[in-house]
């Protein structure tokens, strides 16, 4: 994973709450077996509306999504994160994220920054007044900056560390393989096994 410490890019106001992962990427786009090439699927249903924020010239190069509360709820599809990244987003700001979405973001180098709703409203106003304004998301200081607004954001220490170091989770865990093997030796024999297959 690429290291990320700070990102600056055009902020895109998405004035809506409860943007579930079915809206971020509808299920029909989940049939692909690749990890990339989902940019056309991002917000697919809303993109057909010429009024939709991503269809406005000022936001076409946007890379910081500023969303309402409860962003990324619902389905566990990591495709939602892939689609946001493929489109060009590097950070999403919201006052509350779906748990699984937030976890998936951390694995893929998309910064899910939890910003108080009051600050989101201020940033929305700034972006509406000056479309195309850049937003800086800085992991080192845990702040977002937009015009004269400087607001703190929350992200858990471990995710922040992994993002800043660009670390691969599986590689990290495999360093503890002896602990995994030791744990496996303590598991009771009656714990379920899928093999050999038993049938009713």
């Amino acid at each position, binding site marked *: 994973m690429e290291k990320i410490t700070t990102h600056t890019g055009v902020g895109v106001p998405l004035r809506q709450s409860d943007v579930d992962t079915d809206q971020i990427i509808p299920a029909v786009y989940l*049939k692909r077996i690749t990890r990339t090439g989902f940019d056309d699927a991002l917000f697919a249903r809303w993109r057909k509306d010429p009024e939709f924020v991503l269809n406005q010239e000022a936001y076409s190069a946007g890379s910081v999504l500023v969303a309402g509360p409860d962003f990324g709820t619902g389905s566990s599809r990591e495709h939602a994160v892939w689609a946001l990244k493929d489109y060009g987003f590097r950070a999403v700001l919201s006052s509350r994220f779906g748990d699984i979405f937030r976890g998936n973001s951390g694995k893929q180098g998309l910064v899910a920054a939890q910003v108080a709703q009051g600050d989101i409203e201020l940033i929305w106003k700034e972006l509406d007044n000056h479309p195309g304004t850049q937003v800086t998301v800085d992991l080192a200081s845990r702040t977002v900056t937009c015009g004269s607004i400087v607001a703190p954001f929350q992200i858990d220490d471990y995710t922040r560390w992994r993002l800043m170091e660009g670390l691969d989770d*599986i590689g990290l865990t495999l360093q503890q393989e002896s602990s*995994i093997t030791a744990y496996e030796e303590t598991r009771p024999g009656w714990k379920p096994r899928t093999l050999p297959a038993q049938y009713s």
Partner: protein
Amino acid sequence: MSSPQVSVGTSQTLAEKVWNAHVVQEGGGEGEAKRPDLIYIDLHLIHEVTSPQAFEGLRLAGRPLRRPDLTIATEDHNTPTLDIDKPIADLTSRTQIETLRTNCAEFGVRLHSLGDKEQGIVHVVGPQLGLTQPGVTVVCGDSHTSTHGAFGALAFGIGTSEVEHVMATQTLSLKPFKTMAINVEGALRPGVTSKDIILAVIAKIGTGGGQGYVLEYRGSAIRALSMEARMTICNMSIEAGARAGMVAPDQTTFDYLEGRPHAPQGEDWTAAVEYWKTLRTDDDAAFDAEVNINADELEPFVTWGTNPGQGVSLSRPVPAPEDFEDENARAACERALDYMGLTAGTPMKDIRVDTVFLGSCTNSRMEDLRTAADIIRGRQKDPDIRMIVVPGSARVRLEAEAEGLDQVFKDFGAEWRFAGCSMCLGMNPDQLAEGERCASTSNRNFEGRQGKGGRTHLVSPLVAAATAVRGTLSSPSDLDPIDGATAATAA
């Protein structure tokens, strides 16, 4: 889940007990700076949609799948529910299914393919095989993995990166969850089901209310529920924002499990039950949050909007934006009414639907099919309604046919289909058309979830059946009585 303030040996909640029994390596640290624990995963369920990129990751890194014997796969999201003996018509769906088959063969994973007796929705298959057991950790690249918590398992959905992580290591790095008790006391009235309990819970705490928590469903109303009804409740924990929901195992759990293909046997069974009996929240253990629901007061519940928290009792009218104090909730209501084509103040029971879908990992098990069949037996379907019945697994379908339920549905005029996720998310051809309105026993009423422009009302199997009779959202108590002889059989 071990709170830093609590020292070892003190009281624990059910979720904490299961967590602590699976710590491979403690993360260490305190409070906000606490690092994740490495948690062992007892059972990994796989399906075709969220696994191809994970298998590919293993292949690229030259890593084996660590524990094929703790892994099982099934085909469910893309599979057709008609003509299953023919090649899948949609090419991308067919490719995804074929990719799963190739991957499972290459990595030695047991797979139940379309046409196999054990094929079906991944969350129906695990429990029916007896693989889902109390006190185990279960994960799957699917948010409705919370279903398995009904057995007192710690079960939650994961993304594809985590699927690959479990394949490679049989573990996950996780921060402890907080715990929330959902106390449901009292007795459900006739016609009210576990689906109504969970819809009421979500309406009460909201789609984000459970975020960061494991929900433990407790109280006399929960204890009285069957395993299948408990699965319905735990299934929708994610719709309240919680990754997992749990019910402490009890005699109902043990009775369900005993004799299932992968349940322990003989001395193993005795040892397992002895352990399972310890899996309950200690009397003096504290939850991080508690919510109380009075089961006596619950009525059949139905959603009116585009997230599962936008629900009301079926006897109520469609709410108005002004009913909400919060500005975001007001805006969400306005948007939802527009999408759903509803006018505030309309009685929910006046809403006419086009389609009734009985199925999904929420409500597609034997009990769901039986209770729905009991309502429609001897009655006529509203002629304008299309009703689709999709059993959760091939085995459920066979059992239902052995009981003659397929005939009840067919006589009524419903379509009797093959098993899969089907119209819950419309990845296969089972979709709503633009503007089509559906009473659905599934779990999500999101915009376009069941098909582009489709309008979803989440309901219980009882409400689904009654709605298919009357054509408008209805509960069984709204139905005219049928003649004495038939009524007696139906009851």
